[in-house]
C-alpha cells in the first residue's frame, strides 16, 4: 500500500469500518432475535426519528438547554478548579488545609448530589450548573495541583534567578509548564461534566436532552430514546474533540 493510501485508510476507512460493524451488530441483533421496535428499533428507524427530531424546535431547545448548563458549569468548575489546584501546588500550608476536604469530597460522585440539588434548586438550571461545576472542579483541582508539584525544579530556579517573584513564577512558569497536563485534564473533565448534566436532567429537569429522553421513554417512543442517546454521545465526543483541538492549537510547541 502506498503512503497516501495508507493515511487515507487510517483516517477515514478504519473509523468508518468501526461504525459500520457496530451498526451491523445492532441490525443483526434486532433481526436475529426478532425484537419488536418498542424494545430495540432498527438503525434506520432511529435515523428516521433523528431526522424528524432535527425538524422540531423543541429538540433544538433541549439541546440548547443542556449545552448551556454544561458550558456554564464547565467554565465555573474549570476556572475554580485550576485556581484552587494552583494554590495547592504553590502553597504548602494551603495544600495541607485543603487536602482532607478535597480528598473526601472527590469520591462523592456528582450523582449522589442530585437529590440534594433538586431539593435546593428544584428543576432549575442552577442545580445542573452547580452539579457540572462540582464534577469538573475535582478533576481539575487534583490534576492541576499534581502537575504544578511536578514542574521541573530547574525551571523554578531559573525563574527566581531571572528576578521573578512568587506570583510571577506561579503564573508565568509553573502554570505555563503545567498547562499541557491541565489541558488533558480539562478534556477528561468535559466528558464527566457532560455526563453529569444529562444524568441530572434524567432525574429532575424542566428542559434538556435528559428530560426529552425520559419523556420519550414514558410514551414508549424507543426510537426517540435511542436517537437522543446518540445525540448525547455525538455532542460529548464533539466537545471533547473541540477542547483537544483548542489545547493543541494553543499549547503545542514542537
Amino acid at each position, binding site marked *: 500500500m502506498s503512503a497516501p493510501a495508507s493515511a487515507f485508510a487510517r483516517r477515514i476507512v478504519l473509523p468508518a469500518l468501526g461504525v459500520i460493524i457496530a451498526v451491523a451488530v445492532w441490525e443483526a441483533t434486532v433481526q436475529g432475535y426478532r425484537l419488536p421496535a418498542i424494545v430495540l428499533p432498527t438503525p434506520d428507524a432511529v435515523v428516521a426519528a433523528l431526522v424528524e427530531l432535527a425538524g422540531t424546535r423543541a429538540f433544538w431547545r433541549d439541546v440548547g438547554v443542556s449545552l448551556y448548563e454544561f458550558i456554564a458549569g464547565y467554565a465555573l468548575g474549570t476556572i475554580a478548579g485550576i485556581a484552587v489546584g494552583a494554590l495547592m501546588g504553590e502553597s504548602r500550608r494551603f495544600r495541607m488545609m485543603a487536602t482532607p476536604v478535597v480528598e473526601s469530597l472527590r469520591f462523592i460522585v456528582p450523582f449522589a448530589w442530585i437529590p440534594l440539588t433538586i431539593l435546593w434548586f428544584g428543576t432549575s438550571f442552577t442545580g445542573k450548573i452547580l452539579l457540572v461545576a462540582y464534577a469538573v472542579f475535582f478533576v481539575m483541582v487534583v490534576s492541576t495541583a499534581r502537575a504544578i508539584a511536578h514542574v521541573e525544579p530547574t525551571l523554578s530556579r531559573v525563574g527566581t534567578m*531571572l528576578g521573578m517573584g512568587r506570583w510571577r513564577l506561579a503564573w508565568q512558569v509553573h502554570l505555563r509548564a503545567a498547562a499541557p497536563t491541565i489541558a488533558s485534564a480539562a478534556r477528561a473533565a468535559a466528558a464527566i461534566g457532560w455526563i453529569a448534566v444529562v444524568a441530572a436532567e434524567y432525574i429532575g429537569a424542566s428542559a434538556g436532552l435528559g428530560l426529552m429522553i425520559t419523556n420519550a421513554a414514558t410514551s414508549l417512543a424507543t426510537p426517540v430514546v435511542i436517537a437522543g442517546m446518540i445525540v448525547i454521545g455525538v455532542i460529548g465526543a464533539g466537545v471533547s474533540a473541540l477542547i483537544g483541538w483548542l489545547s493543541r492549537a494553543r499549547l503545542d*510547541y*514542537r
Partner: protein
Amino acid sequence: MTPIRDETGHAPRDASAHTQTASHSPDVAHRGELVVDHVFHDYLAGGRRTDVLNDVSFRIPAGSVACVVGPSGCGKSTLLGLAAGLLRPSKGTLRWDGAPVKMGPTSHLGMAFQQPGLFPWMTVRQNVAIGLRTRGHSRRDAQATADRFLDTVGLADFKDAYPSQLSGGMAQRVGIARALALKPRLLLLDEPFAAVDAFTRLKLQQEFKTLLRLDRPTVLFVTHDVPEAIALGDSIVVMTQRPATVQRIIPVSRDERDRASPAYARKLAETLECLGVTSDME
C-alpha cells in the same frame, strides 16, 4: 533572610588567606565583592543527613573571576546555589555587596545552570529576552539584546527555534546567552561549556573573556576543566572530596594564561597535582 547561626565552639579555620570577617552592613568598600564565610551545607534525604560543604571560605574581589575546580559531586553546584540565594547555608554566611545573600529573586544576578533549564514553550529568543522583560526592559530592548547575545554564542540562526529542537550544547549556549544578556554584576556559571564540543568551547572562552572585559562582573565559575580554569580565572579555588572544603586557592597571573608558555605548563601541573593528578606518568 539568611539565618546566621551561632558558631560558638567553632574555631574559625583559616581555609582562605583572603577571608576576613567584616561588619554585615552594606558598604561601598564591599560593592561587587562575594564573600563565602565558613559556609556549611547539608541536606536530608530519606532520614539521612549528608554533608556537602564543610566549612568553605573564600573571597572574590569585585570584577574578578574565580574558577572552582574539584572532584565531581563535591558540592560545586551547591556553592553556586548558595551564592545565588536559591539555597540556604546550614551554617555560615555568604555576603554580596557586604550584606548577607538574601533568598529569592534578585536583580544583580545572572546564572547559567548545568541543565540549561530553558522554558520549552518559548522560542530561543524569548528565552533569552524573558529575564530582561522581568527586570523591566521594554520588549524591543529585550529582543535586541537577546539577538545580540545569541549572535555572540553563535546561535543567530536559531532564534526562532524551540528548545526541543536544539542539541545539548546549543541549549547550554542559550543558557549562557540568557545569563550574559542580563548584564549581571554577579555572574554564576555551572560548567557552562561542558556539553559544548571542544572547538566551540575554545571559541566561546575567547568570546567570554572579551565580554568580561566590557562589564567586569564578579564571576564564580564552576568547571572540571583545569585548562579552562587557568584560561579564564584570576584565581582557582580547589575543593576537596565531599564533604568539601577549600583545599587551596591558586592565583593565576596574566603570563600563566598563555598556553604556549612554560609558566602555563607549571600552573597546569601545580593545579592538577592539587587535584591528585601527577604530571609525570611513568
